[in-house]
């Protein structure tokens, strides 16, 4: 092996370790007792392995006057992320289909407006959403967050699906229409069966995005209604007086696990969504 190869590998391995350090430290700390961490430091090997932190973090430790761990918040995040992902993906597929294949007057203009939503910062939408949620009595509910993420998410899902459907030959649609198939039948029988590659990308992109979202969660929900990202911040603010880093490490890991798993098993699709969403 030439010495340049050695340098390349050495650099890559060192950088990879640097990238892994924070994750590794959280994993190790989740297996140490909080007392041990406070007595030494956040970086160190456990004197003996403790798995109790996970049980504590899941449904026992106290934050903001409630001693139910992060379980309810995880369930909130799930009941938020799963429906919002499915609905926004289906609506995006429908919208992408009507824009790219069905075509109607002004379709490009409408598409432009929809994708502008990607660029618009969330801060511009906070006050209108407060008013809308109040009118619909959805303030401080998971349903309200589902509505927000569905409407917002459509900007991305429509873009993804439209860009994919543009590649489907228009003749296919013409033939189906001559055979008497209508809007819905074509969508159901022809378009959706061709869609799995883009639907996987869209679902993964939406799920990780919605799971990791924080601003809306912290703005529109409070207390027991919060998704797990918002609850984690509340947690670290609440326990500065009495640090419980062991339990907190376990909580952080549990909260990160769903998106980490999605990433590990669908990395290729994750990256494709990331670049497709960004390059626009």
């Amino acid at each position, binding site marked *: 092996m030439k010495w340049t*190869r050695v340098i*390349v590998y050495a*650099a*890559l391995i060192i*950088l*990879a370790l640097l*990238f*892994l350090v*924070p*994750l590794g*430290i959280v994993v190790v700390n989740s297996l140490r007792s909080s007392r041990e961490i406070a007595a030494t430091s*956040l*970086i160190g090997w456990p004197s003996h392995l403790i798995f109790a932190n996970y049980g504590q973090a899941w449904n026992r430790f106290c934050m903001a006057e409630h001693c139910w761990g992060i379980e309810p918040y995880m369930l909130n995040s799930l009941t938020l992320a799963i429906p919002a992902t499915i609905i926004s993906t289906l609506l995006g597929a*429908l*919208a992408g289909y*009507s*824009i790219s294949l069905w075509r109607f007057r002004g379709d490009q203009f*409408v598409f432009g*407006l*929809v994708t*502008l*939503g990607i*660029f*618009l*910062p969330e*801060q*511009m*939408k*906070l*006050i*209108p959403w407060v*008013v809308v949620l109040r009118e619909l009595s959805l303030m401080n509910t998971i349903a309200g967050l589902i509505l927000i993420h569905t409407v917002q998410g459509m*900007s991305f899902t*429509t873009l993804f699906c439209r860009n994919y459907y543009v590649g489907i030959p228009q003749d296919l649609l013409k033939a189906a229409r001559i055979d008497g198939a209508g*809007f*819905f039948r074509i969508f159901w029988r022809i378009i959706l069966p061709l869609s799995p590659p883009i639907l996987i990308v869209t679902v993964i992109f939406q799920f*990780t995005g919605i799971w*990791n979202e*924080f*601003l809306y969660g912290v*703005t529109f929900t409070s207390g027991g209604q919060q998704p797990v*990202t918002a609850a984690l*911040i509340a947690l*670290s603010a609440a326990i500065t007086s009495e*640090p419980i*880093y062991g339990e*907190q490490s376990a909580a*952080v890991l549990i*909260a*990160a696990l769903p*998106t*980490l798993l*999605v*990433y*590990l098993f669908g*990395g290729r699709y994750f990256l494709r969504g*990331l*670049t497709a969403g*960004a*390059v626009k």
Partner: protein
Amino acid sequence: MRTGLTLVAAKQDAGREQGVWRRRFVGVLTELAIWLPLSVSAGHVVLFTAWTTWVSFTASSLMPDYTWVGLRNYWAVTRTANFQIAYVNLVIFGFGFVLLTMALGLLLAILLDQRVRGENVLRTIFLYPLAVSFVVTGTVWSWLLNPGLGLQRVVQNLGWQDFRFDWLVQSDKAIYTLIFAGVWQGAGFAMALFLAGLRSVDADLVKAAQIDGAGPWRMYRRVLLPTIWPIFITVFVILLRSAITSFDLVRALTGGGPGISTMLPTLVVYDFMFQRSELGRGSAAAVLMLLSLVVVMAPYGLYVRWQRQRQARA
């Protein structure tokens, strides 16, 4: 006989009528399926932007109050220390984060481009921070950088009692910890785009340069990197955009502190809207944020359009 015929005709008529109604119903349903989702989605972008912009010109405080006050909110917001610090910070954080992320991303891409073994594993490692919420990574970094618990404590425990690494709690240095955590989070993304670019360069071009005797260094400097320069612009703009809109990271890592030393525009908006309940001023801060985004994105949009036209002509 005659009656029988009319009966058949009447039946046919009724059938046709049913068909007409059915078709009309499906037609309405189709229009609904096309327009309802699209008008909600497009409508919310336009309406919400107009709404917040309008609120920014009104006397709204705790509740929306649509009395026109002109630019008063804008004057008030731009005079606050919060706002001024936030925009100075945005320049420091923005350029520090963007340039370092690009540099590290490019380094990673070039290293990975050397036909190394285990490329997939390495790529997965460099990209995983992107799959995790900033809330999680920001929390972890806040522990590591915490002088009483993290790196400083470790080094002190090892015997160097005088070792200091307390940037997180130093008001003039805390902004750099944001850059650091941001680069760690974003470098994988830059790497992925650069690597895709390097891989898409025409193989003949590379071969021609090799025949001309170009070494690896010359190859990158003279052939590969100049060929993928459009990707540099794309990465630059995307990262700058995420710097302007970044909220979770600063909220989790420093919370804007110590004091207000790591304020960023997003925190200013949030602070005005929900902590001080001054909706008019918060909206003004949001509109100013949008304007700073437009300043970055508009030239890029024009550039992309110009490039597309050039490609269409070519």
